[in-house]
Every structure is written in C-alpha cells, then in structure tokens.
C-alpha cells in the first residue's frame, strides 16, 4: 500500500512540534548563572582594557600585573560558581559559548598585536582600546543576559 511519506521534513506532527519547542528558551535557566557569565565577561573586559593601555599608563606594568593577578585569582571562583549554578541551557548554548570564547580570544589577540607587541606602531587612545576590549566580551555578556532574561 502506497502511503504518504513520513513527516521527517518537520512540516507537521510531533517531530515538527519538537523542533519548534527546541527553538524556545527553556523556563528553567538560572538567573545566577547568567549573572556569573556576565561577571566573567566583566572580568575579561577589565583585564583587556587595562592591558591594552598598559604602555600609556604611569606604573602601567605594575597596574597590568595587578589586574592580571586579580583576574587569575577571581576567575576560578566565578567559573566554579557558574558551574555550580548551572541549570537548563537553551539549544545551541554550548556552541554559542564556545564561539563567544573564541571571539574574545581572537579580539584579545588582535588588540595585543596592535597595542602590546612592538611589531606595529599604532595610536592607542583609551576610547579605542576600551571599545575593542568591550567588543571582545559583548557576545559572552549577551549570552549571560539571555540566561537571565529566560529565567524571568
């Protein structure tokens, strides 16, 4: 008996509803986890903003070292707290987090090359380096914000 093809194209039925459901944010995300992701982004922003300006600051080396030490000391605590507060993650969250992390590393690398290596001579006004530091962490902060908003 010839029958209609199965609904694997997602046009109707249970499969389509499952696919549709997977596009929504789950109810059980954690506000605290979202805030901690934002905190990680904030820490990274502070570190990058200071490091990009180190060369122009009086006592820049010391300030940079202090910021790096503070970052290294705080990050494990915040990261562990985030993991402890993990609840439901929306579909694609892991991939988006990986992309946000890779983006931050890439922008930090470009910023480091421009303003910390001696390979290029380029002006480093504070507004520009701060903007680049902010650009590095915006995707991660956005991810944290999406968890907070979904939890509410």
């Amino acid at each position, binding site marked *: 008996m010839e029958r209609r093809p199965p609904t*694997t194209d997602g046009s109707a039925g*249970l*499969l389509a509803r499952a696919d549709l459901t997977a596009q929504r944010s789950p109810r059980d995300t954690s506000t605290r986890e979202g805030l901690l992701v934002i905190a990680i982004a904030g820490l990274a922003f502070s570190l990058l903003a200071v490091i990009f300006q180190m060369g122009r600051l009086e006592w820049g080396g010391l300030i940079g070292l202090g910021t790096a030490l503070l970052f290294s000391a705080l990050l494990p605590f915040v990261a562990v707290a985030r*993991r402890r507060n*993990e*609840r*439901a993650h*929306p579909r694609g969250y892991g991939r988006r987090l990986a992309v946000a992390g890779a983006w931050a590393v890439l922008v930090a690398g470009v910023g480091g090359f421009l303003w910390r290596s001696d390979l290029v001579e380029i002006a480093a006004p504070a507004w520009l380096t701060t903007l680049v530091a902010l650009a590095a962490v915006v995707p991660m902060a956005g991810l944290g914000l999406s968890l907070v908003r979904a939890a509410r």
Partner: protein
Amino acid sequence: MTLALARRSLDDTVHSPVRFCLMAALNSVDSADYQTVKEALDVSYTLLSKHVILLEQAGYLRVRKDFVGRTPHTILALTRQGRSAFRTHLAALDEIVKGLT
C-alpha cells in the same frame, strides 16, 4: 514509510514512558541539571537514575557530575546519537498516528 516499517522503527530504548519524557525534555535544551529534570518529570531519584543509566549505556545520554560540597550536581545532555534516535522515534510515531489513511 509503511505502518509496519514505522512500527519497526520504534526504538524500545526510547519508548518507555519515563525515558521518552526524559528524552523529550532534553531534546528541547542543550543540557539540564538532574534536579530540574526530576521536578519536571515528577519521578523519584531512583527511578530517574535507573533510566538515565539505561540511556547512557545506549549512548543516547551524556552525564557530567560535579560536586557542590558533598552534594552531586549532575548535568544531563542528549548525545548526537540520542537526538537522532529521538527524532527517528518521533517520525515513526507521526507515521503510526496516521493509521490506515
């Protein structure tokens, strides 16, 4: 797909009510913690653990355990194979509910 083929496509590992609900819950997210899933399904720790182990052994589920002090904090996520099995199962159910039409 015929009704017979759809029937044969049903996955026994997925088809149990608790496992089906568990996979449906996890299919809608990237991952979820044990407590959230337990509350959503309204099952006991023992029952949920039993089904989690079965799905993990089938390669459908990935389990990550951390400890908050002495309390385990378990994160559950479907594997790629698990998502695929769930989709195949749903497609078969979709076909079956069409009956003889």
